[in-house]
């Protein structure tokens, strides 16, 4: 028997909603707490790394850039996929109207992920490396990651068991996200075979290919989540089943598989690799056009729902999608890419998207969940959250611009054939803005992180009206 009770009017959307509790919600919240902890640690190492750009001798005995960079990048990436996984543990039972397929599996996943990340962080501190971009830990640890994702994959497919005919587009995004995570993780370890390892052209090309698509696979998890939240916020189930939504899904999927090539323009692979890369990259113009087309609607929606925290975060993400996609299309043009490749413009793109888009969307998802689970407490913190979001976005504008600025300095130094040391000296003003705005991002996001942790651990006075072990929904609460 279902025991649900309507809550008073939702402060956010002006309509009443039903608070549902599933027995897997605790696991979802635990994942969220783990994810924001990764983010806080990752940001700290990012700031230390940026200070090493300015102060050559800063921490150069024990914690050199050789360690701070992998710590930062690994933790930043872990934040992204862990927050997405936490969201899915929360949404899956609600979408399918049934309990999570394997509750213990979620906790096993949690334990494995925690142990894996502790092992990887320890390895970095002790100076054990695998020395591959993004996967800088010793190679055998890749197996731990693959294993830790297994219970998640089982839970995902076990819980939704989709009916493809009527499935909304985000089912497809999530499925592709999980399947391609495995494919690309395996692909990024092909170098252990001599066929790949002994040929640098092949090794680098395959590495870009695997990493480019791996980033695409997390994006599928994150974008799927944002589509779902958008649907819930607007209360319109048609959008995510419309042909246009599927058209853009398939375009995104094609880009996930083939778009990595613009990273390899300077690698001496066969010319057709570049042609394919270029053509595929340009299909992103369609996505860009679509965003432009929707802009007015987006703005009017933003104004309408500005008081809703998740909506505000989604709107900021929209702006960053626009800016980063524009920049990405520009640097996919070979004549431009020749100059920008290997400069901080690439870093601007990497962090512009991971902070501006992924991080904003994931916080939207987290606050959407907390709004349902701890509405009272969240309401009290909303002005703090607003400040954190604003500080982050203003700092990010400076951060992004400073990285593009130092990229431009590097290009001009290259053209004038200046030595590396001279180029670094010329970049210094930009590195200063980079480090200071990085601290701004740390402060802005720390406000959000601390708020999330406080809310996750806060007990809202829930009065269990009825507990029935066979029901989907275990209890209902009063504010």
């Amino acid at each position, binding site marked *: 028997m279902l025991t649900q009770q309507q809550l008073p009017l939702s402060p956010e959307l002006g309509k009443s909603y039903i608070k549902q509790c599933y027995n897997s919600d605790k696991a979802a919240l635990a994942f969220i707490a783990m994810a924001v902890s990764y983010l806080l640690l990752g940001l700290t190492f990012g700031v230390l790394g940026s200070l090493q750009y300015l102060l050559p001798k800063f921490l150069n005995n024990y914690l050199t*850039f050789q360690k701070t960079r992998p710590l930062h990048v690994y933790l930043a990436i872990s934040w992204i996929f862990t927050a997405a996984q936490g969201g899915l543990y929360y949404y899956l039972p609600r979408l399918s109207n049934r309990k999570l397929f394997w509750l213990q599996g979620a906790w096993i996943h949690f334990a494995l992920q925690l142990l894996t990340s502790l092992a990887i962080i320890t390895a970095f501190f002790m100076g054990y490396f695998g020395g591959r971009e993004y996967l800088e830990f010793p190679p055998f640890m890749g197996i731990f990651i693959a294993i830790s994702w297994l219970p998640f994959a089982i839970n995902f497919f076990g819980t939704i068991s989709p009916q493809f005919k009527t499935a909304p587009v985000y089912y497809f995004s999530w499925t592709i996200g999980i399947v391609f995570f495995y494919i690309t993780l395996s692909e990024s370890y092909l170098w252990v075979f001599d066929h790949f390892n002994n040929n640098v052209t*092949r090794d680098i090309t395959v590495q870009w290919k695997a990493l480019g698509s791996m980033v695409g696979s997390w994006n599928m998890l994150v974008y799927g989540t944002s589509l779902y939240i958008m649907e819930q916020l607007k209360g319109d189930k048609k959008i995510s089943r419309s042909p246009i939504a599927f058209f853009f899904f398939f375009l995104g999927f094609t880009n996930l598989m083939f778009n990595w090539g613009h990273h390899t323009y300077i690698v001496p692979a*066969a010319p057709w690799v570049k042609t394919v890369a270029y053509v595929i990259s340009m299909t992103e113009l369609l996505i860009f056009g679509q965003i432009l087309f929707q802009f007015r609607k987006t703005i009017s929606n933003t104004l309408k729902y500005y008081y809703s925290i998740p909506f505000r975060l989604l709107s900021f993400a929209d702006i960053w999608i626009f800016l980063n996609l524009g920049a990405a299309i520009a640097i996919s043009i070979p004549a431009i890419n020749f100059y920008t490749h290997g400069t901080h413009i690439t870093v601007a793109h990497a962090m512009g998207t991971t902070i501006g888009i992924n991080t904003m969307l994931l916080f939207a998802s987290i606050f959407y969940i907390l709004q349902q689970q701890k509405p009272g407490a969240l309401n009290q913190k909303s002005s703090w959250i607003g400040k954190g979001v604003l500080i982050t976005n203003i700092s990010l504008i400076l951060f992004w611009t400073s990285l593009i600025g130092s990229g431009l300095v590097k290009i001009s130094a290259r053209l004038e054939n200046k030595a590396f040391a001279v180029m670094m000296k010329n970049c210094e003003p930009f590195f200063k803005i980079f480090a200071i705005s990085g601290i701004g991002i740390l402060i802005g996001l720390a406000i959000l992180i601390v708020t999330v942790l406080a809310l996750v651990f806060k007990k809202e006075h829930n009065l269990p009206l009825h507990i029935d072990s066979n029901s989907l929904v275990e209890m209902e609460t009063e504010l």
Partner: protein
Amino acid sequence: MTKIIIACFLFISFVVYSGFIYTRGTANNIKLSGSEQKMIAHGKQIYQQYNCQACHQIYGLGGYLGPDLTTAWSDPQRGKYLIKAMLISGGNRMPAFQFNNEQTEAIIAYLKYVDTTATSLKPRIRQELH
């Protein structure tokens, strides 16, 4: 059903394309003797073990605190001796790894090999400079 067909079609294209990338798309015709190959592999292994890529790029892949090393070997401003000096005693930001002779030679062999593959890069750079 159409959706499944499109998804399968795209996925099959991906598999076929990957096959080409793993073979013909990235073939190179540099001939190396067995001992050279061993030395290069050893150099690459050291490069990975010490996580040089946190600070250096090869073909643009890696961190940005240090210079790109793809063409360090043939660059008139850098070359073998600077590489050697740097590997032993470090620089302003580059850590002093104090590699022994055998390790230094292996890393140099690897960087030299990378440099010889960089045909796509060198004529373009020269063109741009002149």
